[in-house]
Each structure stands twice: as C-alpha cells, then as structure tokens.
C-alpha cells in the first residue's frame, strides 16, 4: 500500500460520498471539500459539474452570490458542505457562538447560507476536522440550521454524512441519529466515543475507513492538485509535498 496523508484519506472519502451527483457546490474557504469534489469530478470522467465559490476557474455563476441559492431551491445542486463550531447528535449545527445569544461568550462569523442550503440540498456533508467534545456537543447553543424538520416544512435536503478527522458517520433522518460507518486508520471506536458529546448508533464491528488506492492517490497528486491549485495554491503545494 502506498502511504497517504490524512488529507488524502478525507478527500477520498468525500469523493466517494459524492458519487452519482450531477452538480456539487463547495463554499468559500473549504480546500478539503473542494479537493474531494474535484476528485469526484475527475473520477466521473467529467460527468459531474463542480462549482467552487471563491474560485475564478471553477465558478460558472454570472448572477452574483444569489445564483447558488436560486439553484439550490430549484434542486439543481445535489451536494454541498457545511461545518459548525458545534454539531449535536440531531445534526443541528451552530455557526454563531457559544453561550447565550446575542452576547455569546465566543462569537463565530455567522450562519452564512446554512439556514437555507441545509433544507434544500439533498446531500449535505457535514465536514469538521476537529473531533472533540468541544465541537461534538449534546445540544448546540444556537441553531444556525436544524438537522431535521417536521412534515409541514418543505425540506428535500438535509444531512447525509458527518466526516471528521476520526471517522465517518451517516445520518438517519427518521431516527434523527448519527450512525458510525467507519473509523479512520490509526483511530478507534473508543477514541471516537471519548471525543463525542452525543450518543450515536454503532454496529458491533465498525470497519476501518477504506484507504485510497494507488490510482486514486495518483489522481489526487496530479490532476486534482492542479485543479485545486487555481483556487487554493498554498493548500495544493502542501498536497504535493505529501
């Protein structure tokens, strides 16, 4: 097996989660999701369209920032990425701050488009590298976007997976619970339990996250690195150094 970095593992997992999508959008300041999406595009023989916000080369929008949201509401975006300063066991996300609002103890930038895109994009991948009890909390202090909604709310979209530096979870929308799907090489279920502040479903035997094969690594290190370099040059340089 060819040695690989954690970043290479994460982008490989992301690409797998995006299989079958026609159009994937990636928000600003998200180099790992962008790399995963561009890998998925390369693996799709360019059958997939990828829009990277903040990019000149990978962004086809000509109607300004509103175009992403209009496309999402029409069902023209199949996958998007969201994060959170806090994420809880019902997949609620908090991008605003900790403590009581509005004079929060810690203030993060804000909710951006999450309060909308989480409802409308079918496959939202929650991506947060930091996997600690500080982030994975029992209940978020502020709901920027809820993990689920009742039937009276138009909601074709929602959480599809949660990917961290330790493992990969799926989300059961009916049960409103995460399920641990795989643990990254070098980590354990116990470590994930110790660092997660909420309960989640966990099968008796949790597989190890599938490592990238030689062809995938070659694709990441050559073609995808060049693609992502137009938006994230410093990040692409670090990919090459792997």
């Amino acid at each position, binding site marked *: 097996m060819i040695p690989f970095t954690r970043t290479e593992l994460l982008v490989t997992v992301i690409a797998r989660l995006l299989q079958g999508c026609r159009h994937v959008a990636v928000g600003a300041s998200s180099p790992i999701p962008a790399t995963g999406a561009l890998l998925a595009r390369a693996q799709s023989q360019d059958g997939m369209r990828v829009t990277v916000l903040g990019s000149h080369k990978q962004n086809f929008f000509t109607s*300004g*920032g*509103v175009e992403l949201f209009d496309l999402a509401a029409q069902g023209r975006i199949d996958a998007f990425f969201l994060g959170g300063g806090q994420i809880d066991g019902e997949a609620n996300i908090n991008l605003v701050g900790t403590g009581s609002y*509005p004079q929060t*103890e810690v203030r993060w930038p804000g909710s951006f488009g999450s309060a*909308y895109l989480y409802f409308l994009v079918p496959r939202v991948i929650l991506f947060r590298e930091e996997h600690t009890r500080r982030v994975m909390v029992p209940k978020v202090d502020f709901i920027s976007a809820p993990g689920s909604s009742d039937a*009276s709310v138009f909601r074709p979209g929602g959480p599809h997976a949660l990917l961290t530096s330790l493992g990969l979870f799926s989300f059961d929308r009916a049960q409103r619970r995460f399920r641990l799907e795989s643990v990254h090489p070098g980590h354990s279920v116990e470590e994930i339990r110790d660092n997660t502040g909420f309960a989640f479903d966990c099968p008796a035997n949790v597989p190890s996250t599938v490592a990238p094969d030689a062809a995938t690594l070659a694709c990441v290190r050559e073609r995808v690195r060049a693609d992502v370099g137009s938006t994230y040059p410093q990040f692409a340089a670090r990919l090459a150094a792997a």
Partner: protein
Amino acid sequence: MTAAMFCASLDDLVAAIPDGALLAVPKDNSGVAMAATRALVRRGLRNLHLVCVPTGGLQADILIGTGAIAVLETSAVTMGEFGTAPRFTAAIRDGALLMKDATCPAIYAALQASEKGLPFIPLRGIIGTDILRHRTDWKIIDNPFAKDDRIVALPAIRPDVALFHARSADREGNVFIGKEREVMLMAHAAKSTLVTVEEVVEGNLLDDPARGGAVLPAIYVSRIAIAKRGAWPLALGGMYAPDDAAIGRYVSLARTPEGVMQFLAEWDGGAQAAA
C-alpha cells in the same frame, strides 16, 4: 445632471450619507468602497444601520471599531483566512450594537423584494432556526396556493444608500460592474447609490454590446467619485489582488479600538502607496 453626479472628493461623496442611514455594502472583494469608508469614518457618522450583502469583513470591522454602527444586519462577519474580525467580536461581547443575524439568501431576497417594489418576499428554509427565533421581523406564513406548506416571509430591505467601488464609469454616469452582480441588486433596491470608480472612461459604456450587460445604468446612480485603488486593501475583481500584508496588519492592530485608529493613521500616512 451628469456633471453634477461627479464629486470632487470622497468627502463630498459621503456627505450624502446622513447619520442613522440604512447603508448597504457588498462582501469583501466584490467591490467594497474602502477609500470612501475611510472618508466616512473621517466624517464621524453615527448610528448607521449596516446591511452586509450578504457578509461583511474588513469594512464592517472598521466601521464597528470606530463607533459608526448601531445596527448590524449580516449573515456573517469574517476576515477570511485572517480569522475572526476583532472589533465585531468585541462589540458582540460588549453588547455594543444591535445584531440582526441573517442568512445569505434572505438578504439577497429582501433586496430583491425592494427591487420589485414588493413589501415582502417568501423564502424557503429558515424554519426551526434560532436565527428566525430572534428575527421577530421575519414571519412564518401559510402558502396561499397549497395546503400544509409553511414558508418564511421577509420584509423588504430598502437601503437609504448603497455604497460600492467599481472599475469605471463613463461621463454619463453609467458604471461598469463586470461580474459583480450583487452591486446591481443593491443599486436597484436602494433609494440612492454612491459609487467610487478607478477611472472615468470616454464614450458611453452602454453603446458597447460586449460590455453593456455588465453596466449599471446611470438612472440608478446618485453620485460618483474617482478613487484609484479604491478597494484597497481589498481586491477589485480582475484588477488587483488583496493586500494581505495590510489586512494582516489591521487584524493584529485591531485587537484594541486604539489600534484601529493607528491603522487609519498609517493609511493616511501612505500605507496604501507603499503597497
């Protein structure tokens, strides 16, 4: 009429903004009128209601840090890769301004309502968020055309002033905006629009079929002033990149309100020319 649109100085341009104005500005690197912001701070405006379209950054942080903002309506304030916005964070901690957290498409949609002369506009999503719980000015209504379909209604945002920077204007007052369509939306929605430009060009921009579609017609434009590198230290699409050293300098200085004043003093002292 057209000659009167052109202001001799940035101070003249921002003289049109009253205390307490509802001011709309674009997100970082989409045509932020930074040089005019410097003039605005110099004028000592107070009690502004700032609407960031749809997020704020350096400009919002400077306006907060100099005490110009009473109400802040935005989907986020971020310095991007430079981290958190220091004066924004401090103002939230101290309760120094009324924060109206939003989500990006809500700000666009509320401006689109004004663009159409509508009192409100419905928008998907948002139900069940704490954003909506705190935004008592946003309502949930029933879709009048379908059963069991609740949807959020947003009141229109009608800015008193839209302020932005663009590449060029012609002598008729038409402004070339390129791909920065949000400034078009802002100008359509606002009662008045103030623009700074890198240069004034000969001929009528609307006569050029290759560029005419990316022109804000003069009918929407109230006043124009020339500001070379007027978005500095931020980028202007297709013309210049952000000055990362200057933005980094701001973020380290702005840990204190005095640091913001020092940054402005260095700016006046030629930090821009040195870049």
